[in-house]
């Protein structure tokens, strides 16, 4: 790690389908097993094979909560990654590249976006360098970046020879070799790599052994060929007795759902939501503290119209039930959302926001669905919208969503995003003890007379009507998306209509009264500071990073993270606004949707709006710069964070 800062920004890139994920997985696990904290971030194209993807792993001895735009150690094995990322490497950082790629023309990289090619060509031309990898490497030298050429093919050959296996087989360890070159340069004990390999390829002995051999060869190569002292970063393990998990966002949500008692999930495949359902499918049963095992039925439906309908149908039976989707799928759920609101169905929708609108940028991130989640669907239908800021929250919120759904009998939309689902973090093992389930008001028939009917939509002061489960004796009801009476029968009576609209609205008021303040907003940094940053969702990590750096500069600021987005927690937000000066809203979309929502509900406009809409998450670095300028008074009121090299 950077000796001064006790941390390292490592990046690996390569074509989709070539195992970059695996490489990052090995590296991250090796770090985590070594007792280190880390923050991982993945960028990839909407493509199966061939296009570029890369992984950032930021490793530290302390908790880290966002990525950086800069790289300390760049690991590549083909030319495109070298070209795309060379400029991101900091002085005294290093680049590992394939010896064969020392002089590849930018023109030869078919999938290089022409805008990027032109920019790089200009950059190099301005420095009298050719538009080739050679030019970039020379530029790196000039910027005091170290470069290490690795003859991957030779290492593969050596491996093939040593193990008596075909070269093609041996070359499948390319990723492992690349990672091992990195860790060798960082002087990291190879045993952690070995443990990581054993975890990843668990059960597949031959593969493990081959990869371990590859690690050995890589270490030998580095020690033989490179002067590792020249490179100033080191990775040193740390002892810990704490039990920690290495997870990403969809795993956090999936586990949260299981902990929250979910037993039914329907979904239609869509990036980046699919992974959650696939994880659930892979864990259909699990132990239970009460009896036997728990079961989740996961159904792949024909579309998202069906997914929400099916989850709603299941929810009527008392099963805690959910669906997970992304923007396009959520658009198709608009009608079903209204039905669930109208029929007071406790169903959870996990919405993995991605770049929009339309098909947009399926594998990039955005916080573009906030106002749609709140106002989506014709007419006025109640819902609760919550947003998690990090993986710990994602877990607990996923569980909590079902409590809200059942207590307030309405759909709950849990907002996460692509950045969060593909984010990787080391977290302490989740505390299941802390999770309580609130099933809301259940209907108990006055007699268990089979032929009794229940006033499913009884008009009450709280707005909540005790709920029977489908199949419950004495609980029979009607239910309809049409305006209805207490017994669920269609009505067009103007008075009943009014009462029902009011009853449904009262539930939102109740939720606003009951939900504790810390579930509504959380305040970080200096609560008393006027310098107020307000944000929601996955920007949290970057902002916390930036707050720390501001603090190092002697600037105090606070983050108000809004977690309950609807009903809008005006009760806890309004009192915070007076002190806010300046009020800076940060979000990952074009128009500033949260800022609009804030003004709509409090009248207060943001003084500064910091946005990013390139489809990539905000780094703590970039936010720090933005806040710094705001603090200095040199910032325009609308700040767009841009990074042309992501």
């Amino acid at each position, binding site marked *: 790690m950077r000796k001064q800062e006790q941390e390292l920004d490592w990046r690996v890139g390569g074509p989709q389908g070539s195992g970059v994920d695996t490489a990052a997985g090995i590296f991250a696990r090796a770090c985590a097993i070594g007792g280190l904290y880390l923050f991982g971030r993945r960028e990839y194209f909407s493509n199966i094979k061939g296009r570029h993807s890369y992984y950032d792993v930021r490793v530290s001895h302390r908790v880290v909560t966002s990525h950086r735009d800069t790289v300390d150690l760049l690991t590549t094995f083909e030319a495109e990654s070298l070209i795309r990322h060379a400029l991101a490497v900091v002085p005294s950082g290093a680049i590992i590249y394939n010896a064969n790629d020392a002089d590849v023309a930018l023109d030869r990289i078919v999938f290089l976006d022409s805008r990027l090619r032109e920019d790089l060509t200009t950059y190099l031309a301005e420095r009298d360098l050719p538009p080739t990898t050679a030019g970039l490497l020379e530029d790196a030298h000039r910027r005091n970046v170290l470069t290490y050429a690795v003859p991957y093919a030779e290492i593969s050959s050596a491996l093939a020879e040593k193990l008596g296996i075909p070269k093609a087989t041996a070359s499948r360890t390319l990723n492992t070799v690349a990672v091992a070159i990195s860790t060798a340069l960082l002087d990291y004990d190879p045993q952690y790599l070995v443990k990581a390999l054993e975890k990843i390829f668990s059960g597949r002995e031959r593969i493990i052994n081959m990869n371990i051999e590859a690690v050995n060869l890589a270490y030998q190569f580095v020690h033989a060929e490179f002067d590792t002292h020249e490179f100033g970063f080191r990775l040193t393990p740390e002892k810990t007795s704490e039990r920690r998990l290495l997870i990403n966002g969809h795993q956090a949500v999936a586990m949260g759902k299981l902990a929250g008692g979910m037993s*039914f999930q329907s979904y239609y495949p869509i990036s980046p939501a699919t992974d959650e359902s696939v994880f659930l499918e892979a864990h259909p*049963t*699990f132990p239970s503290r009460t009896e036997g095992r728990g079961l989740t039925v996961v159904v792949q439906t024909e579309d998202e119209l069906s997914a929400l309908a*099916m989850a709603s*149908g299941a929810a009527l039976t*008392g099963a805690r039930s959910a669906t997970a989707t992304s923007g396009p799928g959520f658009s198709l759920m608009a009608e079903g959302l209204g039905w669930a609101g109208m029929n007071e169905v406790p169903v959870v929708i996990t919405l993995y926001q991605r770049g929009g609108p339309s098909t947009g940028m399926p594998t990039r991130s955005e916080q573009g669905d906030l106002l749609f989640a709140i106002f989506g669907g014709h007419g006025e239908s109640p819902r609760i919208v919550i947003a998690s800021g990090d993986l710990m929250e994602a877990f607990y919120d996923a569980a909590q969503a079902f409590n809200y759904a059942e207590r307030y009998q309405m759909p709950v939309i849990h907002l996460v995003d692509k950045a969060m689902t593909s984010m990787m973090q080391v977290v302490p093992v989740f505390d299941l003890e802390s999770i309580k389930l609130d099933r809301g008001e259940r209907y108990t028939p006055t007699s268990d007379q089979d032929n009794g009917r229940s006033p499913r939509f009884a008009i009450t002061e709280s707005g909540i009507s005790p709920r029977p489960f*489908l199949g419950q004796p004495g609980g029979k009801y009607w*239910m309809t998306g049409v305006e209805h009476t207490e017994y669920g029968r269609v009505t067009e009576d103007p008075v009943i209509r009014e009462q029902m609209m009011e009853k449904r609205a009262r539930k939102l008021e109740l939720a606003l009264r009951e939900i504790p303040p810390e579930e509504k907003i959380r305040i970080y940094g200096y609560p008393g500071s006027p310098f107020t940053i307000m944000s929601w969702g996955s920007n949290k990590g970057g902002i916390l990073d930036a707050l720390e750096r501001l603090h190092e500069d002697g600037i105090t600021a606070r983050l108000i993270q809004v977690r309950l987005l609807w009903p809008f927690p005006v009760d806890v937000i309004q009192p915070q606004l007076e002190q806010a000066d300046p009020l800076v809203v940060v979000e990952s979309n074009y128009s500033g949707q949260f800022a609009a929502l804030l003004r709509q509900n409090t009248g207060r406009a943001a003084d500064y709006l910091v946005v990013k809409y390139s489809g990539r998450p905000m780094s703590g670095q970039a936010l720090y710069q933005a806040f710094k300028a705001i603090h200095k008074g040199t910032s325009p009121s609308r700040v767009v964070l841009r990074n042309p090299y992501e």
Partner: protein
Amino acid sequence: MTVTAQAKSRITAKDYRTEYPIDWCPGCGDYGILNALQQALARLGIPPHKTAIFGGIGCSGKTPYHLNAYGIHTLHGRVLPYATGAKLANPELTVVAISGDGDGLAIGAGHFVNSGRRNVNLTYILHNNEVYGLTKGQAAPTLPLGMKTRSQPEPNIQSQVHSLLLAFASGFTWIGRGYAYNVRQLIDLIQQAITHPGLAYLEVLQPCPTYNDLHTREWFAERVYSLQDEGYDPLVPEDADEAYVEAKTCQYLEKAFEWNERIPTGVFLQNLSVPSFEARIANRTPIYKTLPPARRIIADETGHTATDLSEIFDELAMT
């Protein structure tokens, strides 16, 4: 669906009736279907609280209001997914889904096709009146090309979807056709459809006296006949071999295409060789049989989660 003899004896059609006024037009075929459904459920001895009737949107979709069971009026075209979710979460329920031909074959056609792939143990009744009743008589997908009912300004410009063929292509394992004014037969068909251990498709020829002046009670009366009266055997047994299935298929298709002069009703297909979705789930995860989603015990007495994630934590733990 488990029915005890005792329960059977207790339940009558009256238990399934409600007192509320019905707002279908006089003479509408929907009355007969409702009547048959009430009687069939009663004869099967299913306690009303274990019955969930799902309806689509349309005149037909109002049916659940007139049964004293759980009655869920869903969205236009989506009745099958709602019904499927409920049934899969609580397989003890008897689930009947009801929709119009617009509901099922236009806006709902995608679910129609894909429900066939799942073969969930529920009964789907489609009211074929060839028009969109509740929106005032536009052509439904069942109306043949070039036909013009009273309510249409021009002859129908779209061709017909052949619903029996579609059901077959989609994989429904029980396929039947009833006629709204032959309540006796309809009761029997509904009973069979409900009893069938898989997805049953029952098309009912349902005259709409208000908008459809082409295929009226009179028109049908002289054409409908019962397949079973003529000895047609719809059964594909559990262990049927390929040749058997093929032979049955041909027989099926021949009857499915019959129209105009003589219109077959009754059971066209009863295929026991395809396992239900519930059986497939139970095959993967046997616990489904005893603790399906609706029965999962999710919290202990103190309200704490009953979920134990230790197995997953083991996978993900690094230290």
